């Protein structure tokens, strides 16, 4: 119990590093503002105030929620489908050989091209979710498949020597290896899903953070633009600190840091 408490306090304490880096970024931003003027870079304080009003008064919070929902929906669907397909492909020699060029092709396709295709197919509504799905799927698929392919055959053999059941072998021996391969790809594709969802919204949607950015661009409103950026980046930082890092330390805690 006390050990867990210490670990929690320790993880909060490491948040100071992040906080000091954020302060540094704001300091440089302030210098930029003082050098180039408010049309290029708005005042940091004013931006933060705008974030406050966006969230409390206008549609800001709603937009952020809509965008998060789309990003998460696309990302989670891609995770489910990608992991299932990746496991299947990983266990079959033929499928893994065949799917490699397919993954390269899908990864080579720029997100903007997918957005245009999705616009033609679905119109405005489904575009952001579809684009997130289709751009993160190959990463997750490849990560899972690679995890299955690169697993240590010796450990499988060891498990077989104890006549352990297939299900237990998967849970205790194979899954941890697959997860350690998948996790970096998974974290990358999560960050990517935010970028992609906003691009798609900017071009194709009437609501969401991307649409808010589009609105700010039309009004040549640098303050609002920066406010949206601050809101989204802040959300990502919070997510990383409170969700991704704890999961990471749980999944990869046994690995030794150099």
């Amino acid at each position, binding site marked *: 119990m006390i050990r867990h408490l210490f670990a929690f306090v320790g993880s909060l304490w490491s948040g100071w590093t992040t906080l000091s880096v954020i302060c540094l970024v704001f300091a440089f931003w302030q210098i930029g503002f003082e050098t180039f003027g408010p049309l290029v870079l708005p005042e940091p304080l004013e931006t933060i105030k705008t974030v406050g009003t966006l969230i409390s008064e206008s549609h800001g919070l709603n937009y952020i929620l809509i965008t998060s929902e789309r990003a998460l929906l696309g990302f989670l669907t891609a995770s489910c489908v990608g992991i299932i397909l990746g496991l299947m492909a990983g266990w079959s020699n033929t499928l893994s050989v065949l799917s490699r060029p397919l993954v390269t092709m899908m990864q080579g396709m720029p997100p903007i091209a997918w957005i245009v295709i999705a616009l033609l197919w679905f119109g405005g509504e489904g575009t952001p979710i579809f684009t997130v799905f289709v751009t993160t799927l190959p990463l997750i698929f490849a990560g899972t498949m690679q995890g299955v392919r690169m697993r240590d055959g010796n450990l499988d053999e060891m498990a077989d*020597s*104890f006549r352990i059941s297939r299900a237990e072998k998967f849970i205790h*021996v194979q899954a*941890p290896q697959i997860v350690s391969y998948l996790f970096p790809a998974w974290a990358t594709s999560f960050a990517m899903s935010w970028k992609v969802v906003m691009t798609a919204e900017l071009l194709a949607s009437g609501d969401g953070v991307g649409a808010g950015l589009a609105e700010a661009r039309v009004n040549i409103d640098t303050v609002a633009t920066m406010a949206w950026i601050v809101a989204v980046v802040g959300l990502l930082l919070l997510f990383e600190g409170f969700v991704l890092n704890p999961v990471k330390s749980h999944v990869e805690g046994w690995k030794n840091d150099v």
Partner: protein
Amino acid sequence: MFKPSQRDNEIRSGTSSSQRPRKKTILHLRLKEHRYLPIEQVLDACELKMAPGEIVSLIGPSGCGKTTLVKIAAGLISPSDGSVERNTDSGAVLFQDHRLLPWKRLYDNMAFGLKAAKLTRQEQFERVSVAAKAMGFSQADLKKFPAELSGGMKQRAAIARAMVTEPDLLFLDEPFSALDVGRRREMYRALLTEIESRACTVLMVTHDIFEALSLSDRVLVMAPDPGRVIKEVTIKMPLHLRTRQLAHELEAELLSDDMIADLFRMKNWEKVL
């Protein structure tokens, strides 16, 4: 099968005949041949019968198929032509490397084989605690990940993991070859204590002739291309009465055979170089 003239080549009889019970066969391996790939024959025809409680060593130069033979006997590989009969369900393998799961703490690693045996948590805890004590692990060690343990500790953990399942058949594939001489002796002593107390049957692979002759009831010498048994040596002296000198004498006798000396590249072996 190897020729009768080469079988049961008894080098020395001990004062008492074997102290172990030898009634029925616990493992009977009949192999016509084994190939991983159709064009490459790894093992030739051979037959191996093991009595309960017997310790049998396989020796031979590297690449002669010792490991493959042990894996076939342990049921990890099915032979391309042949059959293996095991008259017990419980068996364990100790591999060349420790093969601990790096993401599991020492306790969970040692309990790994017990999970498959469907034992309750309490039973697992009791058995692992006894084994941990026997292998000299502290309570703090049990919470560590394998990466935090020394090489010798990892090997001891692997022994414990195998022995807690209380196997009737134990297969050793040069499990201690990476350790220094003293450590190796320590490991063998720890292992033999366990084996004696449980009276389990052991099939082990080693490339050290001396080691094989000092630890086993029977030694099978293998030759490569394709892998086959060319000589069988039975040693009747009980394990606890054996001395270093006896093992050296046995080694000298074995290597006096030109074919064997040639096989191990040990011609004129009395000379250091």
